[in-house]
């Protein structure tokens, strides 16, 4: 099953927000933002901008009729800065003009003088100064302090992982259009239409029902439009409210990169204790999350860092501490993995350090500590239907790990300056929003009298294939051809209070809601046909292949006949379905509960080749065994695995997000920030799905697939580290990601770099080998 969207995409006919036909009188907006990371606004003069030709309005905080406060968890962010600025890129004014170019030009005429305050960019410094969001969180299992004396080897270390720019190819954008009376309709590129609706209403001082939000599709989201699509939608709606005109705002790439939040950088300290055989007895970690200047989703992301801090390992004694630190950078936000990857990276780093201390292969320690059935996660959930060891064993066998490793060792013996590294990366990722209340979804299904079907859900299509998935589910449940089904835009007048399309849970939640709606309609149709044909057992009626069957034989009725008859008999051909994931809860006081409906497991093996004189490397192979449950659409599911992996590999290697001490983003364009290109991915990429792995919650045995594959990418860091160890063994290589070629080089030749040259011997040996 391929998405109907795909055909539109290949014809250039699919529409994004600013492709919709332009309404009469459409105005364009541009944002004037703070060029200073922290300070008090002294002089703010927009008069020259207001007088510019073609400018219709320049809006500031004073023009906001409702509340100037936004934010998904706590409304701690000003839509337009009032007295203080807290990061570079913070919106201060909105210019509305006849064209976007005029608006941007006028922005240059705004005068903003700021009395500069000290800027904090380091999360540890923020923590020391008490600049934190919420309260620090600690998850505990067993007794870590009592366990240390029993450990034969104890090692400690630090990690630093960088942030990550989303680079959704479609930048943030929105268009607001005035409706009848006070109604405003907002077309937004958002993963969370309800968040947009709520916030626009708050900013305008309206009830929610006067704001209609419509989302057709996104040109990529990856978490970056979960809540950070909201400000742009609010600003266009504000401008429409003020001018009475339709208003569109499309950020340029550089504006987007400067003004929006990204994946959180983290600093972490770990301490790990093991037996001489490599059994982990105790693990302690302290995560300092760089949250940026507003809470945004950071506390929720921090929580998921804790949930995944022990990855797919069972450790009897753990203490996991994490704190969200306020700095003067753009508010960091959701990005595929939602804090999980940062937690898992540190766990893998700790294992690497232990392996190096014991002189034992890293994968042996990993394998010895894999989760098993009935183990406990540090948050109190029992491990059920565990596939950690299963996916590990299948990967080892399918991809002949032992022979592979021998080949790598052989290569390394033969070559002097080119070294290979091999790493295994198991993953375990919990599925559900960790805020339990978000695990709800509804769907609205209409069957028309010609037999065609319209389905609305709260899910947003952003390239993940939601439309194709819902179509597959619905066609199967109705027993009709997929061509009869149309998946509508996501609209707040059809679906109320929807959760964001996030947490990998969009198909799980909205697919199940669709099933529940369809079952109502099908049940009505079955009862009707049983009455019509005098059938004793309506439950034995089935609809498939567009025909109606009874006890396995055709009744002679077709789908369209069935629908038309039902209409004539005044049977309701519409239904709303509501799904709430059962059996999940979490008690934040005790930090215990059952937050996840289930876990996704998998194992990846990654190979790299590193040129140890130049620092450049290639990722040669990534071979994965992934726990997908039962595939819904194999091609789409594979696409999610491959795409997630590419982003994970990018985060660990070439994607370097840099800020200077003044809080300036030094990587705010695609010329200075490098996402993976067409040469980046390994030529040898293999993905095997675990067989017979149905997930009862489904839909149709399927498991969530959006985020988990991202974390296979973490393995590349350790493959590179192994290659470095093969060239020059040392225990103090840093755990600092991304491991860009530059950093590899500086690490490998630390002393030489300090002395200013490579040792002649090194250069000479390189000449002689390879």
């Amino acid at each position, binding site marked *: 099953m391929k998405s109907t969207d795909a055909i539109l*995409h*290949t014809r250039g006919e699919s529409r994004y927000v600013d492709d919709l036909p332009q309404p009469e009188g459409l105005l364009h907006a541009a944002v004037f933002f703070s060029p200073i990371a922290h300070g008090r606004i002294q002089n703010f003069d927009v008069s020259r901008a207001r007088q510019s030709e073609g400018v219709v309005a320049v809006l500031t905080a004073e023009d906001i009729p409702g509340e100037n406060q936004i934010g998904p968890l706590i409304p701690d962010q000003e839509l337009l800065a009032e007295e203080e600025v807290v990061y570079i890129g913070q919106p201060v004014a909105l210019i509305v003009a006849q064209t976007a170019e005029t608006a941007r030009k006028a922005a240059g005429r705004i005068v903003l003088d700021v009395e500069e305050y000290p800027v904090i960019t380091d999360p540890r410094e923020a923590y020391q100064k008490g600049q934190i969001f919420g309260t620090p969180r600690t998850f505990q299992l067993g007794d870590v302090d009592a366990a240390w004396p029993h450990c034969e080897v104890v090692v400690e270390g630090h990690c630093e992982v960088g942030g990550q720019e989303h680079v*959704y*190819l479609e930048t943030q954008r929105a268009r607001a259009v005035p409706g009848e009376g006070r109604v405003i309709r907002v077309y937004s590129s958002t993963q969370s239409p309800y968040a947009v609706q709520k916030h626009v209403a708050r900013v305008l001082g309206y009830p929610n029902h006067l704001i209609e939000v419509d989302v057709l599709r996104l040109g*990529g989201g990856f978490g970056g439009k979960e809540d950070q699509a909201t400000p742009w939608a609010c600003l266009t709606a504000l401008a429409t409210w003020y001018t009475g005109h339709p208003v569109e705002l499309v950020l340029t*790439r550089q504006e987007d990169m400067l003004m929006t939040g990204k994946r959180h950088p983290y600093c972490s300290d770990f301490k790990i204790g093991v037996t001489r055989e490599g059994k982990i007895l105790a693990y302690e970690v302290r995560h300092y999350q760089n949250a940026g200047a507003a809470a945004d989703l950071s506390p929720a992301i921090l929580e998921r860092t804790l949930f995944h801090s022990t990855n797919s390992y069972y450790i009897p004694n753990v203490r996991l501490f994490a704190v969200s630190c306020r700095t003067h950078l753009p508010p960091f936000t959701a990005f595929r993995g939602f804090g999980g990857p940062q937690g898992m990276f540190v766990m893998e780093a700790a294992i690497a350090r232990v392996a190096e201390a014991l002189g034992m292969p890293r994968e042996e320690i990993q394998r010895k500590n894999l989760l098993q059935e009935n183990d406990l996660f540090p948050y109190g959930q029992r491990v059920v239907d565990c596939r950690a060891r299963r996916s590990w064993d299948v990967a080892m066998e399918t991809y002949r790990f032992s022979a592979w490793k021998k080949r790598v060792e052989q290569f390394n013996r033969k070559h002097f300056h080119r070294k290979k590294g091999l790493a295994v990366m198991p993953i375990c990722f919990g599925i559900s929003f960790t805020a339990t209340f978000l695990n709800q979804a509804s769907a609205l299904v209409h069957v028309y009298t010609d037999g065609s079907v319209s389905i609305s859900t709260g899910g947003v299509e952003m390239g993940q294939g939601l439309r194709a998935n819902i179509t597959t589910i619905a066609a199967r449940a109705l027993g009709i051809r997929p061509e009869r089904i149309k998946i509508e835009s996501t609209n707040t007048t059809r679906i109320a209070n929807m959760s964001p399309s996030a947490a990998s849970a969009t198909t799980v939640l909205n697919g199940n809601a669709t099933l529940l709606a369809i079952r109502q309609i099908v049940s009505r149709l079955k009862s009707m046909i049983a009455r019509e044909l005098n059938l004793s057992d309506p439950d034995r009626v089935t609809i498939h292949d567009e025909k109606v069957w009874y006890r396995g034989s055709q009744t002679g009725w077709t789908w369209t006949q069935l629908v038309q008859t039902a209409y004539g008999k005044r049977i309701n051909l519409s239904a709303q379905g509501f799904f709430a994931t059962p059996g999940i809860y979490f008690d934040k006081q005790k930090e215990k509960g059952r937050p996840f409906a289930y876990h996704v497991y998998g194992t990846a093996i990654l190979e790299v080749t590193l040129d140890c004189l130049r620092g450049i490397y290639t990722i040669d192979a990534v071979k994965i065994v992934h726990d997908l449950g039962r595939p819904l659409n194999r091609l789409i599911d594979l696409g999610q695995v491959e795409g997630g992996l590419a982003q994970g590999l990018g985060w660990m290697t070439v994607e370097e997000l840099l800020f200077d001490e003044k809080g300036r983003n030094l990587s705010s*364009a695609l010329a200075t920030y490098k996402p993976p290109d*067409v040469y980046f*991915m390994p030529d040898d990429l293999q993905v095997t799905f675990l067989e017979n792995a149905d997930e009862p919650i489904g839909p149709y045995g399927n498991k969530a697939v959006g985020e988990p594959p991202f974390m296979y990418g973490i393995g590349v860091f350790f493959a590179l580290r192994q290659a470095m160890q093969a060239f020059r063994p040392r225990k103090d290589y840093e755990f600092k990601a991304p491991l860009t070629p530059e950093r590899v080089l500086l690490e490998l030749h630390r002393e030489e770099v300090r002395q200013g040259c490579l040792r002649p011997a090194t250069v000479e040996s390189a000449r002689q080998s390879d």
Partner: protein
Amino acid sequence: MEIPIKVTVNGEVYEHRVEPRMLLVTFLREVLGLTGTHVGCDTSSCGACTILMDGKAVKSCTLLAVQADGAELLTMEGLARNGELHPIQEGFWREHGLQCGFCTPGMIMAAYQLLEENASPDEKEIRRALEGNYCRCTGYHNIVKSVQYAAKKINR
């Protein structure tokens, strides 16, 4: 001051007066209403805005409309003939060479130029032809497969 230009787009001749600083992509999207060409980065890094100008793949976000005066342009909308998908379009659909679809027009136009010049490219040549285009959703493998599918079909 506006300057008259005459361009052929997807076989149709258009005459317009444009501001000398108007970008070619703006002309296509806003004057002609051809929104199949997307803007991804404004700086010719991402390739989403790739179109064909006199047979050459160009990034329409860093060309001026006046530079296209007298040229023949081909955009996404001009690929399908009589409702039939071009083999490249079919390839991207069949091989799932797309997810969110935003980079797709640029990818397809860059691949189109390649196949016009070299109907049987090897994998290396395909990747070279696409090195100016970013995709953030996929890992590019299916995009390469899509072009291979098209090459095979064209040569059949």
